């Protein structure tokens, strides 16, 4: 139960429920929970004005641990519940948690329509490239050939990339971060919170039981500087330990390519500058995969457009303005009637 507190005195404890956290020891979900609980007080939203919605999966247990309103729903359908909550009460701050199975396998359609509709809801997709809760089957984001319980001979499907998928669906805000990078994650979630409209943040999260080390190749401490591109709007897209590598667009191959500043006459001015409002660029950044490219983290795309809840609210208001607040009596007597 939440205490009666004022928005400027919120602390992490105000967002921490009394429920025992039940993830496997070492699970990446803990780091996300801690970051979120530490971040939330910043937003000035009281716990009782916040709803966390989820589907089913390890990740989807998240709402139980937040001392806010929370709804742990059914597998894959969280975007629909979140939309329902938001349109029923647009004043609530609605956050959603889903997994790569929940959000992209059974729930891919809802997520897609959620993104194009654009309700003002923030969705976090915990991508561990595996089904955790059902004990280790491959997920839509697992790599081709993955050997799991359900694919002892290797998985046959081409993986889905969440961010390109979201952009293809018409998302207005897409970002990417890493579970264990608290600072970066906070930055990204702050941006998601500020954005008016549906946001999707993909969070690389390690499932140490069924898919341990899935992201080590670009998140491990010693390699990350060279293998991650930390995006900043308006800044040249440089990366590497000494920030000497950068992205340019090569018109010949019609693709991004990596150059070294200081070599072959390349200067920082030649490097592409990140423009998070450019959808064309976003598409290219979103699809960069290690080892050909560094993995792009941060806000990949953002575009404000009318939110679904605002449009519906406005339609209601316009209707009232036009017809007056509906009266049942008038309605029943409208059109052809006769009196006996």
């Amino acid at each position, binding site marked *: *139960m939440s205490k009666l507190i004022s928005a400027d005195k919120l602390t992490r404890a105000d967002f921490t429920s009394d429920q025992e956290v039940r993830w496997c020891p070492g699970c990446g979900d803990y780091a996300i929970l801690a970051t979120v609980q530490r971040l939330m007080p910043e937003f000035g939203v009281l716990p009782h004005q916040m709803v966390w919605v989820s589907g089913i999966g390890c990740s989807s247990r998240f*709402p139980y641990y937040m001392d806010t309103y929370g709804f*742990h729903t059914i597998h894959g359908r969280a975007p629909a519940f979140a939309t329902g909550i938001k349109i*029923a*009460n647009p004043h609530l701050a609605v956050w959603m948690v889903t997994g790569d199975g929940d959000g992209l396998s059974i729930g891919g359609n809802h997520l897609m329509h959620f993104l194009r509709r654009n309700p003002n809801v923030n969705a976090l997709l915990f991508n561990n490239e595996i089904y955790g809760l059902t004990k280790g089957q491959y997920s839509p984001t697992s790599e081709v050939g993955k050997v799991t319980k359900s694919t002892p001979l290797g998985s046959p499907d081409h993986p889905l990339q969440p961010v390109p998928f979201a952009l293809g669906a018409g998302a207005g805000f897409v970002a990417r971060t890493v579970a264990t990078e608290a600072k970066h994650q906070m930055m990204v979630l702050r941006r998601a919170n500020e954005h008016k409209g549906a946001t999707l943040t993909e969070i690389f999260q390690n499932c140490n039981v069924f898919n341990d080390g899935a992201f080590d190749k670009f998140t491990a401490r010693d390699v990350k500087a060279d293998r991650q591109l930390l995006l900043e709007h308006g800044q040249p897209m440089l990366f590497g330990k000494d920030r000497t590598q950068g992205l340019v667009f090569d018109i010949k191959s019609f693709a991004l390519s990596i150059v070294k500043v200081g070599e072959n006459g390349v200067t920082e001015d030649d490097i592409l500058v990140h423009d998070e409002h450019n959808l064309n660029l976003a598409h290219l950044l979103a699809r960069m995969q290690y080892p050909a490219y560094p993995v792009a983290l941060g806000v990949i795309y953002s575009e404000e457009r009318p939110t679904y809840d605002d449009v519906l609210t406005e339609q209601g208001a316009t209707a009232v303005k036009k017809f007056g607040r509906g009266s049942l009596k008038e309605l*029943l*007597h409208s059109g052809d009637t*006769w009196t006996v």
Partner: protein
Amino acid sequence: MAQSAAPQPPTGAKIKTLNGAVVRFAGDSGDGMQITGSQFTSTSALLGNDLTTFPDFPAEIRAPAGTLYGVSAFQINFSSDAVFTPGDAPDVLVAMNPAGLKTNLSHLKTGGLLIVNADAFSKANLKKASYDENPLEDDSLNAYHLLSVDIGKQTQAAVKETGLTSKEAGRCKNFWTLGLMYWIYSRPREATIKWLEAKFAKRPDIVKANILALNAGHAYGETIEFSHERYEVPSAKHSPGTYRNISGNQAIAWGFLAAAELSGTEIVLGSYPITPASDVLHELAKYKHHGITTMQAEDEIAAVCTAIGASYAGKIGLTTTSGPGLALKTEGIGLAVCTELPLVVLDVQRAGPSTGLPTKTEQSDLLQAMYGRNGESPLPVIAAYSPGDCFHSAIEAVRIATKYMTPVILLTDGYLGNGAEPWRIPDVDYLPKIEVKKHTDPEGFHPWLRDEETLARVWPIPGTPGTTHRIGGLEKDYNSGNISYDAANHQRMSDVRAAKVAGIAKDIPAQSLELGKENGMLLVLGWGSTFGAIREAVSRCRERGLDVAHAQLKYINPFPENLQSLLAGFDRVLVPEMNMGQLVKVLRSQFMMPIESYAKIEGQPFKIAELETRIRGLMES
């Protein structure tokens, strides 16, 4: 123009007074039969007739002209007595083309009046309707009173002065026909003229042409040597009040608007289009100023989940669909059962299985409504039995859902949804308010606190300080609402969910008899849209002196408390259903009585005559 249509004193033919009549309009989808039918309906209603209508659409959107499957028909039964069905066999059949004749003739009473548009009986059209010979030219229609008119030509002549193209002029022929029918049944033309003026306000030429056609059709009755009689059907003895025509789908939509007003709680409709339920979505989408938000979701699953989300957020979640859509919603409804959230699910049933016969009616989702969920997921099921009752059933569904914190399935069907009847508009001030309790007290709060009497859990609304909580589809502890895997607790929670629903029996009216008295030889027990046909059939049997009663069940889960003793009072109980005997299964399993089934699954409502025959067969044998 309008004055020229003022009712003229009847001239030639004698006018015979009838109790009532059944008229059926049939023609090509493009012939405007639905409009003709509804104009005839409005005018008859304004005249004070009681009536029931049945639109009979083709499955195709717009089938090629002249085809058998492209025929669109509209039947109306109007009377100075109370009527309960659109009538078995029409007294008059209007056939605008050979296909309309072919597919509808079998309905017509022997000796009935058959009006055909002779112009349309071209070789091509006859072929499309699979006629080898022109039926107007052989003896095949001898059993009827045939009035063959070149309606097309007559219409063209009548509207010539407007200068419309001949194609546009041709489209007025349904109003010509309507004029003739108005003449035959002595109905005034004003209401239709007003309607035309409003409808085509932007096209005065079209208004004029249609009025000309209407008047010409009327005049045709006056002038030809019309050997058939002319009739008058006086007003019915309606109870005093203001009336309107209403279809089941419209009434149910308005019922939900009423529930929003009566409960002071807004409705959020999540829906996905599906025949024959879509019109409820369409209707509700018009009334955003009535405290309703409507959303066309990406599918039925999203629709129900959106509605449940809205319920969690403190609004009344509503979702509307038909059979295949209900199949998709079952997992979501199970969550509403488990989280005990108020939700109303409307199923406008259609003929199955699978896609089935989407435009045909059936009552075959009852067992799906009762049992179509994983695990033990009891919920209330109610069925509306007439267009007027649809209005009240929608309110009742919302009352039960919010009072008991439970999803409610409300059943109607395509026949009920599309059919219309005059309805005495209720006095809004006397409609009972729905008291919705939202929980705001942080003291000792947990989300599974229950009302001792109703067993409903509290409804704490996000946004309320002090009652933050988490719910979900996992089993929860009776005493704290936290997730619980405890064995005894699961039994207890299962028991209380069942008891809550069963307890609603105390809060609904006792089952009454529509006709007849308690303790007799035969009770005919119906549910849903079979109401009218059963009532009429039982009434006819009773007129013959048979000891038969009629009850129509509205509350199917739980049954009214007195139902078992009511049934026990009869030697036999017969349950007619438009399925393979689903209610019978439920009744038998609950009461273990040898209840008899009269199951018919033809995608069509029962005819009065077939019910009468069955009842008499049972009682006279």
